[in-house]
Every structure is written in C-alpha cells, then in structure tokens.
C-alpha cells in the first residue's frame, strides 16, 4: 500500500441553525482553509470528492451547486458519494492508492436543521416493512440502548457519564455546539425523551461543513511538518433489518478495526462517531479499548453532529491531534445508518 496522509483539515463551527449561509456559502470557507493549510495549490490537487445527502435539504442534486464553492475550472477530476464524508475520504484514498494522483480534496456538508431530521432519517429504512411505520432515529437508538444496557448490566448513569465527559471536553473545541459542565446526577433527573434515552444521550441537530486534504508519500512530507499517515482504513456494513442483528455489539466496527490494524499497537486516542451515548460504549468494546484510550477529546458527535460531516470530522479531529503531536497513534471511526449499521475505522500515525 502507498503511504497516504491527511495534511490539513478545516471545519466550520457546528450550529443549531445556519441562517446566514446556504450550502455553497458554508462549504467555501472550509474548502479554502483546508487547501491553504495544505500548502498545495488548488489547481494542483489531483482529485476532489465530496459526501452529502439530498434529503437533508429536500432537493435533488444538492451536491451539484456545492461544486460552485470550489472553483472547478478548468474542469477537475471529481466524484461524489451520497454518504458521510468519511466515505468520500475512502474513495479519495483508493484513488491515491492507484498511484494516478498524489493529492486529493475531500469535503462534506449538511444542513440538518432544514428538515425534521429524525423523520428524514426514517427514510433510510427499508421502505416496505420499516419506513411505513415511521420509526424515528431516536426511537431506534433507544431500542439499541435498552438491548445494550440489559445485556451488559451497564446503567443509565454510565450513559450520562459519557454525555458529561463529551461536553466537558468540548469546552476546549471552538467547533463545538454543545459544551459545558454537566452534573451526572442532574442529568439523570431529567425526563426520558424515548426511554431509556434522555435528551443528553442524543446528539444535537447541527449544520456544518468540513474539508481535508490528502497527500501521498513525498508530497505529504514536503507540505506537512508532521503528516497524519493513514496506516489502515477499512469499512464494513451489517444487515439492515434490526431484528436480524445483535444490536448490543458492533461486529462491523470490530472487523473494520481488525483489518485496519487497530490492535497492532497502542492507541493514544480515538475519535469515535457515536451520535448516541450508548454507542460510544458499544464502539469501545468492539475496538477492544481499555481505559488508557482517550476517547473523543473533541467532544465527538454529542457536541456537534452535522449530518454527512460528523464522520469525516472524526478523521479530521484525530488527524489534527496527530499532526500537532498530541498523539502518536490515533483511531478514527465513522458510522452511517440506523443503530451503527455501517462503520469505518482508520488508524492514523505520526512518523
């Protein structure tokens, strides 16, 4: 495999509702910033790929106008996945593995605030048996949470602790939407939203955009003082029908982690895409993390969850920490679909 690294990252602050900017206006600054930080002139970037979802805005081809944001002229080699930006990163990584290009721009955006997000996500479900019942995303997560709590003996207090820690850590992040000191006992005194989940167990609804630049081998070494090398990258999907899966584990995360080589060395920190508190615990178990692994120092999706961006953001946040030297070896994870149906795991290392 060819050495490929993340050499720059930019992300907008997650906000509950971006009133001022449309998608193009949201994407433009982060793309500019990521490209500038990469030190690679925009016209020299070999491949561009984005991730987004038409249904967030309720309009077909929302990615087409986003192309205006990046100045695609002269015409560029470009692709798009209707998936979280993390899968756009994967497509770019594959392109770099082919050896035809040495650098790639990856971006994604989502204005989740425009629609009723839990209902929009309902339309991700099997359109014959599931979607016609209109189960919302929070209800499905709650089914998983109860199964997990009952099987493992963990408690709602454990979940609240994840929320409190994430939002405390998020205080240090300028990108966070939800940050602050929360007392676990007080959180537990709140009513249920969909039992056993309370509001604090759920991610905020966020608008945002992110972009990063990948570079291969010598180019990465030339433009970055300390590139975040992608040492392993894999993704797996599980069956869709919830009643055919064991919701209390994440076998696809475990398999992707094994193939990405997570266990080949000590992990300093991990950015896990866990929109709901219990999902962080499921993912930690799947990746075999002990207490020594710092999880979601950025605050994770519980501090800001722009759809289609939050997975790519885990790679960006982890890469920034490797590039800064805060971590020698970091794990980044992205998820998609109901109850962690699809998962990607990457291992990032400094030199």
């Amino acid at each position, binding site marked *: 495999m060819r050495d490929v690294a993340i050499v720059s990252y930019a992300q907008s602050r997650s906000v509950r509702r971006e009133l001022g900017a449309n998608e193009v206006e949201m994407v433009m600054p982060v793309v500019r910033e990521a490209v500038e930080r990469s030190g690679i002139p925009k016209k020299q970037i070999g491949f561009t790929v984005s991730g987004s979802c038409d249904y967030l805005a309720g309009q077909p081809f929302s990615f087409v106008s986003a192309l205006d944001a990046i100045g695609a002229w002269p015409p560029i080699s470009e692709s798009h996945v209707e998936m979280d930006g993390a899968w756009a990163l994967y497509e770019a990584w594959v392109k770099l593995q082919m050896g035809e290009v040495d650098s790639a721009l990856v971006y994604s955006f989502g204005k989740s605030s425009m629609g009723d997000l839990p*209902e929009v996500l309902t339309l991700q479900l099997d359109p014959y048996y599931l979607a016609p019942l209109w189960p919302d995303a929070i209800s499905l997560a709650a089914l998983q949470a109860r199964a997990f709590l009952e099987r493992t003996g963990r408690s709602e207090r454990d979940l609240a602790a994840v929320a409190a820690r994430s939002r405390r850590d998020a205080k240090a992040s300028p990108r966070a939407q939800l940050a602050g000191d929360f007392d676990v006992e007080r959180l537990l005194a709140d009513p249920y939203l969909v039992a056993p989940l309370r509001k604090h167990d759920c991610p905020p609804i966020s608008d945002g955009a992110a972009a990063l630049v990948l570079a291969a081998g010598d180019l990465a070494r030339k433009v970055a003082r300390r590139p975040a090398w992608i040492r392993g990258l894999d993704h797996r999907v599980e069956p869709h029908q919830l009643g055919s899966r064991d919701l209390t584990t994440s076998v696809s995360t475990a398999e992707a982690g094994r193939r990405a080589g997570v266990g080949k060395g000590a992990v300093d920190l991990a950015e896990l895409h866990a929109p709901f508190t219990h999902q962080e615990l499921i993912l930690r178990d799947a990746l075999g993390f002990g207490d020594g692994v710092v999880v979601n120092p950025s605050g994770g999706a519980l501090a800001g969850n722009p759809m289609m961006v939050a997975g790519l953001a885990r790679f960006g946040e982890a890469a920034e920490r490797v590039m800064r030297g805060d971590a020698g070896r970091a794990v980044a994870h992205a998820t998609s679909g109901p109850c962690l149906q699809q998962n990607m795991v990457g291992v990032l290392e400094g030199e």
Partner: protein
Amino acid sequence: MAEEQGRLTKTHVLEYPYKRSVGPVLGRFFTGLRARRIEGVRAPAGAVIVPPLEYDFATGAATGDFVSVGPGGVVTTWAWVMAPRPKHPLDRPFAWALIRLDGADTAMLHAVDAGTPERMRTEMRVVPRWRDERVGHIRDIVCFEPEGA
C-alpha cells in the same frame, strides 16, 4: 415567505405518493396480512426470517419455503415513546419493540400499545391487533398488545 432574524425564510414541502411493487415474497407476506395471516420464509441455513425477505440477510442467497409463524411472539427489546410524533402508529404514549414471533428466528419492528411503560418488559409476550380494513400493508397490523390484555 417569512422573516427570521432578518433572513428570508420559506417552507418547502416535499410530498409524493410513492407506490412500490413488492415482488413474489413480500407480496405473499402482504397478501397474508390482509387475511390476518403472518408468514416467514426459510433461509438456506434453516433460520426463519420474519418479515420475509427474498434473500438471506447474512449471505445474499435466495430464501426458500414459506413458514407460518406467530401471530404472538416475545419482545426482544423496546423503547418507550413519551410524546408520539404525528406519523407514528399510535397517538398516545407507546413502545417501539422488536418482536420475535413464535416460530421465527428474527425479530420484526412494530409498535406495542401497553398504556404505561410499567407494563413493558423484555421477553414479554405480545399479540397483534389487526386493522378492520386491511389492504395488504405492514399497517394492517395496527400495533401489538400485551397477550391477555
């Protein structure tokens, strides 16, 4: 058109009456529901999948014979909805549940009308409540309810 914090805002409604052809396997299941009958299908390795799919979810291989299941079953996990949304199957607090029907190896999602969360527990038995006017649709089952209720 309206204004919010000095910005122009407008409601956009995306609405379409999608009609989905169901093919032989789902078609037989929906036809069964119309007659208050629930059928699953057997995967090559022997598991009975309910609701039935044309394929084994684990391998993609085609599934085989139909098997009568239910109508009752057990709850494998559940979630209590305090404030139902307008599109939910019930307009009062209810449980979403994964329900493994008698004779099935997988669980299906549906609503359980239990009145209060205290009446819900994992492994409890439930039975379907049928709609009077059935058309061959997953909503021919209004919801499930605790057995003996």
